[in-house]
Protein backbone atom coordinates (compact mmCIF):
# COMPACT_ATOMS: atom_id res chain seq x y z
CA UNK A 1 0.00 0.00 0.00
CA UNK A 2 1.03 3.57 -0.58
CA UNK A 3 0.19 6.55 1.61
CA UNK A 4 -1.77 9.32 0.01
CA UNK A 5 -2.04 12.69 1.69
CA UNK A 6 -5.33 14.54 1.23
CA UNK A 7 -5.50 18.28 1.90
CA UNK A 8 -8.67 20.35 2.26
CA UNK A 9 -8.45 23.48 0.13
CA UNK A 10 -10.67 26.42 -0.53
CA UNK A 11 -11.38 27.04 -4.19
CA UNK A 12 -9.56 30.34 -4.64
CA UNK A 13 -6.31 31.58 -6.16
CA UNK A 14 -3.05 30.64 -4.50
CA UNK A 15 -4.10 27.65 -2.44
CA UNK A 16 -2.19 25.00 -4.42
CA UNK A 17 0.78 27.33 -4.43
CA UNK A 18 0.67 27.51 -0.65
CA UNK A 19 0.68 23.73 -0.35
CA UNK A 20 3.52 23.28 -2.79
CA UNK A 21 5.51 26.01 -1.07
CA UNK A 22 5.17 24.34 2.32
CA UNK A 23 6.38 21.06 0.82
CA UNK A 24 9.22 22.77 -1.03
CA UNK A 25 10.44 24.43 2.14
CA UNK A 26 10.70 20.97 3.71
CA UNK A 27 12.45 19.58 0.65
CA UNK A 28 9.65 17.14 -0.02
CA UNK A 29 9.02 15.76 -3.46
CA UNK A 30 5.59 15.37 -5.02
CA UNK A 31 5.31 12.23 -7.15
CA UNK A 32 1.69 12.58 -8.19
CA UNK A 33 -1.31 14.72 -7.40
CA UNK A 34 -4.90 15.21 -8.36
CA UNK A 35 -7.63 17.63 -7.35
CA UNK A 36 -11.25 16.91 -6.68
CA UNK A 37 -13.35 20.06 -7.06
CA UNK A 38 -16.54 20.44 -5.01
CA UNK A 39 -17.57 24.03 -5.56
CA UNK A 40 -16.37 26.24 -2.75
CA UNK A 41 -13.72 23.73 -1.74
CA UNK A 42 -11.69 20.90 -3.18
CA UNK A 43 -9.48 18.06 -2.04
CA UNK A 44 -5.89 17.91 -3.19
CA UNK A 45 -4.51 14.37 -3.12
CA UNK A 46 -0.80 13.78 -3.33
CA UNK A 47 1.71 11.05 -3.30
CA UNK A 48 4.91 12.42 -1.82
CA UNK A 49 8.22 10.84 -0.98
CA UNK A 50 7.82 11.31 2.78
CA UNK A 51 4.11 11.34 3.55
CA UNK A 52 4.42 11.51 7.35
CA UNK A 53 6.73 14.50 7.17
CA UNK A 54 4.44 16.17 4.67
CA UNK A 55 1.46 15.72 6.96
CA UNK A 56 3.33 17.22 9.89
CA UNK A 57 4.50 20.17 7.83
CA UNK A 58 1.00 20.94 6.55
CA UNK A 59 -0.70 20.39 9.92
CA UNK A 60 1.85 22.73 11.52
CA UNK A 61 0.58 25.42 9.19
CA UNK A 62 -2.99 24.76 10.28
CA UNK A 63 -4.06 22.90 7.16
CA UNK A 64 -6.68 20.18 7.41
CA UNK A 65 -4.97 17.09 6.00
CA UNK A 66 -5.16 13.35 6.40
CA UNK A 67 -3.17 10.30 5.41
CA UNK A 68 -4.90 7.42 3.75
CA UNK A 69 -3.70 4.07 2.38
CA UNK A 70 -4.29 3.60 -1.34
CA UNK A 71 -3.27 0.94 -3.81
CA UNK A 72 -0.40 1.92 -6.09
CA UNK A 73 -0.49 -0.44 -9.04
CA UNK A 74 2.17 -0.55 -11.75
CA UNK A 75 2.20 -2.20 -15.14
CA UNK A 76 4.02 -1.88 -18.42
CA UNK A 77 2.82 1.02 -20.56
CA UNK A 78 0.85 -0.81 -23.21
CA UNK A 79 -2.71 -0.80 -24.57
CA UNK A 80 -5.33 -2.73 -22.60
CA UNK A 81 -3.73 -2.77 -19.18
CA UNK A 82 -6.24 -0.43 -17.53
CA UNK A 83 -9.04 -2.47 -19.06
CA UNK A 84 -7.54 -5.66 -17.63
CA UNK A 85 -7.17 -4.14 -14.17
CA UNK A 86 -10.68 -2.70 -14.06
CA UNK A 87 -12.19 -5.94 -15.41
CA UNK A 88 -10.61 -7.85 -12.54
CA UNK A 89 -12.08 -5.37 -10.06
CA UNK A 90 -15.49 -5.26 -11.74
CA UNK A 91 -15.80 -9.06 -11.86
CA UNK A 92 -15.22 -9.10 -8.13
CA UNK A 93 -17.77 -6.34 -7.64
CA UNK A 94 -15.20 -3.93 -6.25
CA UNK A 95 -16.19 -0.29 -6.59
CA UNK A 96 -13.51 2.27 -7.33
CA UNK A 97 -14.03 5.39 -5.24
CA UNK A 98 -11.17 7.37 -6.62
CA UNK A 99 -8.30 6.80 -9.02
CA UNK A 100 -5.67 8.67 -10.93
CA UNK A 101 -2.79 7.49 -13.03
CA UNK A 102 0.15 8.53 -15.10
CA UNK A 103 2.99 7.06 -17.12
CA UNK A 104 6.58 7.39 -16.15
CA UNK A 105 8.16 8.02 -19.56
CA UNK A 106 11.68 7.14 -18.45
CA UNK A 107 10.99 3.45 -17.91
CA UNK A 108 7.68 3.16 -19.80
CA UNK A 109 5.74 2.12 -16.74
CA UNK A 110 2.19 3.08 -15.91
CA UNK A 111 1.24 3.82 -12.31
CA UNK A 112 -2.31 3.91 -11.06
CA UNK A 113 -3.46 4.99 -7.60
CA UNK A 114 -6.70 3.37 -6.54
CA UNK A 115 -9.04 3.82 -3.66
CA UNK A 116 -11.75 1.19 -3.46
CA UNK A 117 -14.89 0.81 -1.42
CA UNK A 118 -14.72 -1.65 1.49
CA UNK A 119 -11.15 -2.78 0.71
CA UNK A 120 -11.28 -5.20 3.64
CA UNK A 121 -13.95 -7.38 1.99
CA UNK A 122 -11.71 -8.83 -0.73
CA UNK A 123 -7.99 -9.28 -0.77
CA UNK A 124 -7.52 -6.63 -3.40
CA UNK A 125 -3.73 -6.90 -3.24
CA UNK A 126 -3.77 -10.58 -4.11
CA UNK A 127 -6.40 -10.04 -6.79
CA UNK A 128 -4.26 -7.42 -8.46
CA UNK A 129 -1.14 -9.57 -8.25
CA UNK A 130 -3.01 -12.55 -9.75
CA UNK A 131 -3.69 -10.47 -12.82
CA UNK A 132 -0.05 -9.71 -13.42
CA UNK A 133 0.14 -6.27 -11.82
CA UNK A 134 2.54 -5.14 -9.14
CA UNK A 135 1.53 -3.37 -5.95
CA UNK A 136 4.13 -1.01 -4.62
CA UNK A 137 4.73 0.86 -1.40
CA UNK A 138 6.04 4.36 -0.79
CA UNK A 139 9.69 3.45 -0.60
CA UNK A 140 9.54 1.61 -3.93
CA UNK A 141 7.73 4.47 -5.62
CA UNK A 142 10.84 6.51 -5.45
CA UNK A 143 12.88 3.95 -7.34
CA UNK A 144 10.68 4.07 -10.42
Amino acid at each position, binding site marked *: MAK*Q*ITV*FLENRPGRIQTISRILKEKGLNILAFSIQDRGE*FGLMKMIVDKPDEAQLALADRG*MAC*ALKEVFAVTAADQPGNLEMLTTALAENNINIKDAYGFVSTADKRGICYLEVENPQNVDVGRLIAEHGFTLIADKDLYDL
Partner: protein
Amino acid sequence: MDIRYWNQRLETLPQPELRQLQLERLREVVGYALQTPFYKKRLPKVGISSPEDIRSLDDLKRIPFTVKDDLRQAFPKGLLAVDMEKVVRIHSSSGTTGIPTVIYYTADDLDRWTDLLARSIVATGAGPGDVFQNMMSYGLFTGGLGMHYGAERVGMAVIPVGGGNTQRQLQIMRDFRTTVLHITPSYLLHIHQRMPEFGLTPADLNLKKAWMGAEPHSENTRLKLQELFGIDIYNSYGLSEMNGPGVAFECVYKNDLHVWEDGYIIEIIDPRTGEPVEDGREGEVVFTNLIRHALPLLRYRTRDLAFLHPEPCPCGRTARRMSRITGRTDDMLIINGVNVFPSQIEEVLMSIPEVGTNYQIHLSRHEGLDRLTVKVEIYSKLFTGDLAALEALKNKINEKLRASITINSRIELHEPGSLPAFEGKAKRVVDEREKL
Protein backbone atom coordinates in the same frame (compact mmCIF):
# COMPACT_ATOMS: atom_id res chain seq x y z
CA MET B 1 -58.78 63.34 0.24
CA ASP B 2 -61.26 60.53 0.59
CA ILE B 3 -61.22 59.88 4.31
CA ARG B 4 -63.08 56.77 5.48
CA TYR B 5 -63.40 55.33 8.93
CA TRP B 6 -64.19 51.83 10.10
CA ASN B 7 -65.13 52.91 13.60
CA GLN B 8 -65.35 56.67 13.53
CA ARG B 9 -66.14 57.09 17.22
CA LEU B 10 -63.07 55.17 18.39
CA GLU B 11 -60.78 56.48 15.69
CA THR B 12 -61.56 60.12 16.48
CA LEU B 13 -62.00 59.74 20.23
CA PRO B 14 -60.60 62.86 21.91
CA GLN B 15 -57.30 62.17 23.67
CA PRO B 16 -58.63 62.43 27.26
CA GLU B 17 -61.32 59.86 26.50
CA LEU B 18 -58.81 57.69 24.69
CA ARG B 19 -56.61 57.69 27.82
CA GLN B 20 -59.63 56.82 29.97
CA LEU B 21 -60.43 53.89 27.65
CA GLN B 22 -56.80 52.76 27.83
CA LEU B 23 -56.95 52.84 31.62
CA GLU B 24 -60.11 50.71 31.70
CA ARG B 25 -58.66 48.20 29.28
CA LEU B 26 -55.33 48.13 31.10
CA ARG B 27 -57.12 47.20 34.34
CA GLU B 28 -58.94 44.43 32.52
CA VAL B 29 -55.72 43.08 31.00
CA VAL B 30 -53.88 43.28 34.33
CA GLY B 31 -56.70 41.14 35.72
CA TYR B 32 -55.95 38.52 33.09
CA ALA B 33 -52.20 38.88 33.60
CA LEU B 34 -52.67 38.06 37.29
CA GLN B 35 -54.07 34.70 36.17
CA THR B 36 -50.73 33.71 34.61
CA PRO B 37 -47.89 32.06 36.55
CA PHE B 38 -45.48 34.61 35.05
CA TYR B 39 -47.21 37.85 36.08
CA LYS B 40 -48.66 36.35 39.28
CA LYS B 41 -45.09 36.19 40.51
CA ARG B 42 -44.00 39.50 39.04
CA LEU B 43 -46.80 42.00 39.60
CA PRO B 44 -47.35 41.70 43.38
CA LYS B 45 -43.65 42.57 43.85
CA VAL B 46 -44.44 46.04 42.52
CA GLY B 47 -47.61 46.36 44.56
CA ILE B 48 -50.09 45.23 41.92
CA SER B 49 -52.16 42.35 43.23
CA SER B 50 -55.49 43.25 41.68
CA PRO B 51 -56.74 45.38 38.76
CA GLU B 52 -57.78 48.08 41.26
CA ASP B 53 -54.13 48.68 42.07
CA ILE B 54 -53.92 50.38 38.66
CA ARG B 55 -55.30 53.82 39.56
CA SER B 56 -53.98 55.79 36.63
CA LEU B 57 -52.01 55.15 33.46
CA ASP B 58 -48.94 56.31 35.39
CA ASP B 59 -49.12 53.07 37.37
CA LEU B 60 -48.12 51.25 34.18
CA LYS B 61 -44.58 52.53 34.77
CA ARG B 62 -44.34 50.46 37.96
CA ILE B 63 -44.61 47.29 35.92
CA PRO B 64 -41.26 45.86 34.84
CA PHE B 65 -40.63 45.39 31.13
CA THR B 66 -41.36 42.04 29.54
CA VAL B 67 -38.78 40.84 27.02
CA LYS B 68 -38.59 38.14 24.37
CA ASP B 69 -36.65 35.88 26.68
CA ASP B 70 -39.52 35.99 29.19
CA LEU B 71 -41.75 34.53 26.48
CA ARG B 72 -39.26 31.74 25.94
CA GLN B 73 -38.89 31.02 29.63
CA ALA B 74 -42.66 30.95 29.95
CA PHE B 75 -43.03 28.48 27.10
CA PRO B 76 -45.44 26.81 26.67
CA LYS B 77 -48.05 27.95 29.20
CA GLY B 78 -46.45 30.33 31.68
CA LEU B 79 -48.22 33.32 30.13
CA LEU B 80 -51.52 31.63 29.35
CA ALA B 81 -54.30 33.44 31.22
CA VAL B 82 -57.35 31.40 30.19
CA ASP B 83 -58.37 27.73 30.04
CA MET B 84 -57.10 25.96 26.93
CA GLU B 85 -60.74 25.33 25.98
CA LYS B 86 -61.08 29.06 25.37
CA VAL B 87 -58.12 29.14 22.99
CA VAL B 88 -59.03 29.08 19.29
CA ARG B 89 -55.72 30.00 17.66
CA ILE B 90 -52.04 29.43 18.35
CA HIS B 91 -49.18 31.22 16.58
CA SER B 92 -45.60 30.29 17.34
CA SER B 93 -42.11 31.29 16.30
CA SER B 94 -38.64 29.91 16.73
CA GLY B 95 -36.48 31.21 19.55
CA THR B 96 -32.80 32.02 19.93
CA THR B 97 -32.15 29.13 22.25
CA GLY B 98 -34.17 26.62 20.32
CA ILE B 99 -37.08 27.31 22.66
CA PRO B 100 -39.96 28.70 20.64
CA THR B 101 -42.37 31.41 21.72
CA VAL B 102 -46.12 31.01 21.52
CA ILE B 103 -49.09 33.35 21.33
CA TYR B 104 -52.61 32.19 22.21
CA TYR B 105 -55.86 33.84 21.14
CA THR B 106 -59.42 33.41 22.32
CA ALA B 107 -62.27 33.92 19.85
CA ASP B 108 -62.81 37.40 21.31
CA ASP B 109 -59.09 38.19 20.99
CA LEU B 110 -59.22 37.29 17.30
CA ASP B 111 -62.35 39.39 16.91
CA ARG B 112 -60.70 42.49 18.42
CA TRP B 113 -57.50 41.95 16.41
CA THR B 114 -59.48 41.50 13.20
CA ASP B 115 -61.33 44.72 13.91
CA LEU B 116 -58.07 46.68 14.12
CA LEU B 117 -57.03 45.19 10.79
CA ALA B 118 -60.36 46.19 9.28
CA ARG B 119 -59.71 49.69 10.60
CA SER B 120 -56.21 49.69 9.11
CA ILE B 121 -57.52 48.56 5.73
CA VAL B 122 -60.27 51.15 5.59
CA ALA B 123 -57.81 53.87 6.63
CA THR B 124 -55.97 53.25 3.35
CA GLY B 125 -59.19 53.73 1.40
CA ALA B 126 -59.70 50.06 0.53
CA GLY B 127 -63.03 48.31 0.95
CA PRO B 128 -65.82 46.33 -0.71
CA GLY B 129 -65.27 46.02 -4.44
CA ASP B 130 -61.54 45.65 -4.01
CA VAL B 131 -59.89 42.37 -4.97
CA PHE B 132 -57.20 41.60 -2.44
CA GLN B 133 -54.29 39.30 -3.24
CA ASN B 134 -52.63 38.33 0.04
CA MET B 135 -49.01 37.50 -0.78
CA MET B 136 -47.78 37.13 2.78
CA SER B 137 -47.20 33.58 3.91
CA TYR B 138 -49.98 31.86 5.79
CA GLY B 139 -49.33 29.48 8.66
CA LEU B 140 -47.59 30.17 11.96
CA PHE B 141 -46.54 33.61 10.70
CA THR B 142 -49.25 36.09 11.73
CA GLY B 143 -48.92 38.31 8.63
CA GLY B 144 -50.93 36.13 6.27
CA LEU B 145 -53.91 35.06 8.37
CA GLY B 146 -54.20 38.36 10.23
CA MET B 147 -54.69 40.48 7.15
CA HIS B 148 -56.87 37.79 5.56
CA TYR B 149 -59.51 38.02 8.27
CA GLY B 150 -59.36 41.81 8.39
CA ALA B 151 -59.98 42.04 4.64
CA GLU B 152 -62.88 39.62 4.79
CA ARG B 153 -64.44 41.64 7.58
CA VAL B 154 -64.22 44.78 5.49
CA GLY B 155 -65.86 42.96 2.60
CA MET B 156 -63.01 42.72 0.13
CA ALA B 157 -62.69 39.72 -2.18
CA VAL B 158 -59.71 37.89 -0.69
CA ILE B 159 -57.35 35.67 -2.70
CA PRO B 160 -55.31 33.71 -0.13
CA VAL B 161 -52.41 32.91 -2.43
CA GLY B 162 -49.55 33.24 0.08
CA GLY B 163 -45.94 33.90 -0.94
CA GLY B 164 -43.79 32.77 -3.86
CA ASN B 165 -44.33 31.57 -7.45
CA THR B 166 -44.09 34.84 -9.33
CA GLN B 167 -45.64 33.55 -12.53
CA ARG B 168 -48.76 32.35 -10.74
CA GLN B 169 -48.98 35.60 -8.75
CA LEU B 170 -48.96 37.62 -11.97
CA GLN B 171 -51.45 35.27 -13.61
CA ILE B 172 -53.80 35.72 -10.66
CA MET B 173 -53.37 39.50 -10.70
CA ARG B 174 -54.41 39.49 -14.34
CA ASP B 175 -57.19 36.91 -14.16
CA PHE B 176 -58.96 38.42 -11.16
CA ARG B 177 -58.11 42.08 -11.80
CA THR B 178 -56.47 42.32 -8.37
CA THR B 179 -56.57 45.83 -6.92
CA VAL B 180 -54.76 45.47 -3.56
CA LEU B 181 -51.62 43.56 -2.54
CA HIS B 182 -50.16 42.70 0.84
CA ILE B 183 -46.49 42.05 0.22
CA THR B 184 -42.91 42.59 1.38
CA PRO B 185 -40.98 45.37 -0.38
CA SER B 186 -38.31 43.02 -1.70
CA TYR B 187 -40.89 40.76 -3.28
CA LEU B 188 -42.72 43.67 -4.88
CA LEU B 189 -39.43 44.79 -6.43
CA HIS B 190 -38.83 41.30 -7.69
CA ILE B 191 -42.30 41.09 -9.23
CA HIS B 192 -41.53 44.24 -11.16
CA GLN B 193 -38.23 42.87 -12.44
CA ARG B 194 -39.89 39.69 -13.66
CA MET B 195 -42.84 41.26 -15.47
CA PRO B 196 -41.15 41.69 -18.89
CA GLU B 197 -40.41 37.97 -18.92
CA PHE B 198 -44.15 37.34 -18.99
CA GLY B 199 -44.83 40.13 -21.46
CA LEU B 200 -46.53 42.29 -18.81
CA THR B 201 -46.31 45.91 -17.75
CA PRO B 202 -48.08 47.47 -14.75
CA ALA B 203 -50.57 48.95 -17.25
CA ASP B 204 -51.81 45.42 -18.02
CA LEU B 205 -52.82 45.02 -14.39
CA ASN B 206 -55.49 46.68 -12.30
CA LEU B 207 -53.41 47.35 -9.18
CA LYS B 208 -54.38 50.34 -7.03
CA LYS B 209 -52.72 49.81 -3.67
CA ALA B 210 -50.23 47.74 -1.74
CA TRP B 211 -49.72 47.28 1.99
CA MET B 212 -46.08 46.75 2.66
CA GLY B 213 -44.75 45.15 5.81
CA ALA B 214 -42.66 42.44 7.50
CA GLU B 215 -39.41 44.11 6.42
CA PRO B 216 -38.06 47.54 7.32
CA HIS B 217 -37.77 49.74 4.24
CA SER B 218 -37.03 53.36 3.48
CA GLU B 219 -39.26 56.14 2.18
CA ASN B 220 -37.26 56.05 -1.06
CA THR B 221 -38.18 52.42 -1.61
CA ARG B 222 -41.85 53.29 -1.17
CA LEU B 223 -41.59 56.19 -3.61
CA LYS B 224 -39.73 54.08 -6.16
CA LEU B 225 -42.24 51.24 -5.99
CA GLN B 226 -45.17 53.63 -6.15
CA GLU B 227 -43.73 55.09 -9.31
CA LEU B 228 -42.85 51.76 -10.91
CA PHE B 229 -46.36 50.39 -10.43
CA GLY B 230 -48.35 53.62 -10.44
CA ILE B 231 -50.06 52.67 -7.16
CA ASP B 232 -50.37 53.90 -3.56
CA ILE B 233 -48.28 52.03 -1.04
CA TYR B 234 -48.98 52.05 2.69
CA ASN B 235 -46.63 51.09 5.48
CA SER B 236 -47.85 48.36 7.83
CA TYR B 237 -46.45 47.52 11.26
CA GLY B 238 -47.07 44.68 13.62
CA LEU B 239 -45.46 41.83 15.52
CA SER B 240 -46.86 38.53 16.70
CA GLU B 241 -46.36 39.48 20.37
CA MET B 242 -48.89 42.27 19.74
CA ASN B 243 -51.15 39.86 17.75
CA GLY B 244 -49.58 40.46 14.35
CA PRO B 245 -50.15 43.15 11.70
CA GLY B 246 -52.51 46.01 12.48
CA VAL B 247 -50.67 47.50 15.46
CA ALA B 248 -49.93 50.65 13.47
CA PHE B 249 -50.88 51.57 9.92
CA GLU B 250 -50.69 54.51 7.57
CA CYS B 251 -53.78 56.42 6.53
CA VAL B 252 -54.31 58.00 3.11
CA TYR B 253 -51.92 60.83 4.05
CA LYS B 254 -49.07 58.29 4.16
CA ASN B 255 -47.31 60.34 6.78
CA ASP B 256 -46.21 57.59 9.18
CA LEU B 257 -48.23 55.06 11.08
CA HIS B 258 -51.22 55.64 13.36
CA VAL B 259 -50.77 53.46 16.41
CA TRP B 260 -54.20 52.08 17.37
CA GLU B 261 -53.94 53.38 20.91
CA ASP B 262 -57.24 51.93 22.06
CA GLY B 263 -55.66 48.52 21.41
CA TYR B 264 -52.08 49.16 22.40
CA ILE B 265 -50.25 51.49 24.76
CA ILE B 266 -47.09 52.68 23.09
CA GLU B 267 -44.05 53.94 24.98
CA ILE B 268 -40.74 55.03 23.49
CA ILE B 269 -37.85 54.46 25.85
CA ASP B 270 -34.12 54.91 25.98
CA PRO B 271 -32.96 51.32 25.44
CA ARG B 272 -30.08 51.75 27.89
CA THR B 273 -31.89 53.32 30.81
CA GLY B 274 -35.48 52.23 30.23
CA GLU B 275 -36.57 55.85 30.81
CA PRO B 276 -39.11 57.45 28.46
CA VAL B 277 -37.75 59.77 25.76
CA GLU B 278 -39.43 62.97 24.56
CA ASP B 279 -41.83 62.84 21.65
CA GLY B 280 -39.92 63.13 18.38
CA ARG B 281 -36.83 61.47 19.84
CA GLU B 282 -35.87 58.03 18.66
CA GLY B 283 -35.97 55.16 21.12
CA GLU B 284 -37.07 51.57 21.62
CA VAL B 285 -40.75 50.91 21.07
CA VAL B 286 -42.53 49.29 24.00
CA PHE B 287 -46.10 48.02 23.70
CA THR B 288 -48.75 46.90 26.13
CA ASN B 289 -51.42 44.79 24.49
CA LEU B 290 -54.85 45.98 25.67
CA ILE B 291 -56.99 43.63 23.61
CA ARG B 292 -55.65 40.12 24.08
CA HIS B 293 -56.79 38.17 27.10
CA ALA B 294 -55.45 34.67 26.37
CA LEU B 295 -51.85 35.85 26.58
CA PRO B 296 -51.45 39.29 28.12
CA LEU B 297 -48.19 41.12 27.54
CA LEU B 298 -47.41 44.25 29.53
CA ARG B 299 -44.67 46.68 28.54
CA TYR B 300 -43.16 44.39 25.92
CA ARG B 301 -39.83 45.58 24.56
CA THR B 302 -39.94 45.16 20.78
CA ARG B 303 -36.28 45.97 20.10
CA ASP B 304 -37.54 48.13 17.24
CA LEU B 305 -36.35 51.74 17.13
CA ALA B 306 -38.76 54.52 16.11
CA PHE B 307 -40.12 57.87 17.31
CA LEU B 308 -43.58 59.31 17.97
CA HIS B 309 -45.33 62.23 16.24
CA PRO B 310 -47.68 63.90 18.69
CA GLU B 311 -49.09 66.47 16.24
CA PRO B 312 -52.57 65.77 14.83
CA CYS B 313 -53.05 64.19 11.40
CA PRO B 314 -55.33 65.86 8.81
CA CYS B 315 -57.32 62.63 8.59
CA GLY B 316 -58.89 63.45 11.97
CA ARG B 317 -57.76 60.30 13.74
CA THR B 318 -56.59 60.98 17.26
CA ALA B 319 -54.24 58.01 17.45
CA ARG B 320 -50.68 59.30 17.52
CA ARG B 321 -48.32 58.37 14.74
CA MET B 322 -45.14 56.35 14.93
CA SER B 323 -42.27 56.73 12.47
CA ARG B 324 -41.23 53.85 10.25
CA ILE B 325 -38.79 51.51 12.00
CA THR B 326 -35.35 53.08 11.88
CA GLY B 327 -33.37 50.19 13.31
CA ARG B 328 -33.10 47.51 15.96
CA THR B 329 -31.52 47.46 19.39
CA ASP B 330 -30.34 43.89 18.86
CA ASP B 331 -28.80 41.95 16.02
CA MET B 332 -31.94 40.18 14.91
CA LEU B 333 -31.98 39.36 11.21
CA ILE B 334 -35.12 39.15 9.15
CA ILE B 335 -34.73 36.44 6.53
CA ASN B 336 -37.71 36.07 4.21
CA GLY B 337 -39.87 37.46 7.00
CA VAL B 338 -38.55 34.99 9.59
CA ASN B 339 -36.77 36.40 12.63
CA VAL B 340 -33.36 34.85 13.14
CA PHE B 341 -30.73 35.71 15.71
CA PRO B 342 -27.07 35.02 14.88
CA SER B 343 -26.80 33.40 18.30
CA GLN B 344 -29.22 30.68 17.15
CA ILE B 345 -26.89 29.85 14.29
CA GLU B 346 -23.84 29.96 16.52
CA GLU B 347 -25.40 27.61 19.01
CA VAL B 348 -26.10 25.00 16.34
CA LEU B 349 -22.63 25.30 14.79
CA MET B 350 -20.88 24.98 18.10
CA SER B 351 -22.75 21.76 18.85
CA ILE B 352 -21.14 20.06 15.84
CA PRO B 353 -17.62 18.77 16.62
CA GLU B 354 -16.40 18.77 12.99
CA VAL B 355 -16.98 22.52 12.81
CA GLY B 356 -14.14 24.82 13.85
CA THR B 357 -14.60 27.89 16.01
CA ASN B 358 -14.90 30.47 13.27
CA TYR B 359 -17.92 31.01 11.07
CA GLN B 360 -19.64 33.71 9.07
CA ILE B 361 -23.27 34.39 8.23
CA HIS B 362 -23.86 35.73 4.73
CA LEU B 363 -27.09 37.23 3.49
CA SER B 364 -27.84 37.99 -0.12
CA ARG B 365 -30.93 38.33 -2.23
CA HIS B 366 -31.82 36.29 -5.31
CA GLU B 367 -35.04 36.69 -7.25
CA GLY B 368 -36.59 38.75 -4.50
CA LEU B 369 -35.94 36.12 -1.87
CA ASP B 370 -33.29 36.20 0.81
CA ARG B 371 -30.58 33.61 0.77
CA LEU B 372 -28.72 32.58 3.90
CA THR B 373 -25.23 31.17 3.46
CA VAL B 374 -23.41 29.88 6.49
CA LYS B 375 -19.66 29.63 6.06
CA VAL B 376 -17.90 27.38 8.52
CA GLU B 377 -14.33 26.35 9.02
CA ILE B 378 -13.74 22.66 9.26
CA TYR B 379 -11.97 21.35 12.35
CA SER B 380 -8.62 20.01 11.12
CA LYS B 381 -8.25 17.28 13.74
CA LEU B 382 -11.45 15.63 12.57
CA PHE B 383 -10.67 15.83 8.87
CA THR B 384 -10.53 12.33 7.38
CA GLY B 385 -9.81 13.17 3.76
CA ASP B 386 -13.12 11.62 2.80
CA LEU B 387 -15.30 13.61 0.42
CA ALA B 388 -18.50 11.78 1.35
CA ALA B 389 -17.90 12.69 4.98
CA LEU B 390 -17.64 16.38 4.03
CA GLU B 391 -20.89 16.25 2.05
CA ALA B 392 -22.56 14.50 4.97
CA LEU B 393 -21.25 17.22 7.28
CA LYS B 394 -22.83 19.92 5.11
CA ASN B 395 -26.16 18.12 5.20
CA LYS B 396 -25.94 17.63 8.93
CA ILE B 397 -25.27 21.34 9.52
CA ASN B 398 -28.17 22.36 7.29
CA GLU B 399 -30.58 19.90 8.95
CA LYS B 400 -29.64 21.02 12.43
CA LEU B 401 -29.90 24.68 11.47
CA ARG B 402 -33.28 24.19 9.86
CA ALA B 403 -34.56 22.53 13.01
CA SER B 404 -33.61 25.66 14.94
CA ILE B 405 -34.31 28.58 12.61
CA THR B 406 -36.90 26.90 10.32
CA ILE B 407 -35.25 28.05 7.11
CA ASN B 408 -32.88 26.43 4.65
CA SER B 409 -29.33 27.62 4.33
CA ARG B 410 -26.45 26.98 1.98
CA ILE B 411 -23.49 25.61 3.86
CA GLU B 412 -19.97 26.41 2.72
CA LEU B 413 -16.93 24.65 4.12
CA HIS B 414 -13.73 26.61 4.55
CA GLU B 415 -10.14 25.94 5.56
CA PRO B 416 -9.23 26.28 9.22
CA GLY B 417 -8.12 29.85 9.94
CA SER B 418 -9.39 31.25 6.65
CA LEU B 419 -12.45 33.20 7.77
CA PRO B 420 -11.82 36.64 9.22
CA ALA B 421 -11.00 36.44 12.89
CA PHE B 422 -11.95 39.29 15.18
CA GLU B 423 -10.65 40.73 18.37
CA GLY B 424 -13.38 41.21 20.93
CA LYS B 425 -16.82 41.48 19.43
CA ALA B 426 -16.86 39.53 16.22
CA LYS B 427 -18.61 40.80 13.15
CA ARG B 428 -19.99 37.54 11.95
CA VAL B 429 -22.82 38.78 9.79
CA VAL B 430 -22.25 40.04 6.27
CA ASP B 431 -25.50 41.38 4.88
CA GLU B 432 -25.21 42.02 1.15
CA ARG B 433 -28.92 42.51 0.63
CA GLU B 434 -29.77 45.84 -0.91
CA LYS B 435 -31.23 48.11 1.74
CA LEU B 436 -34.88 48.78 1.06
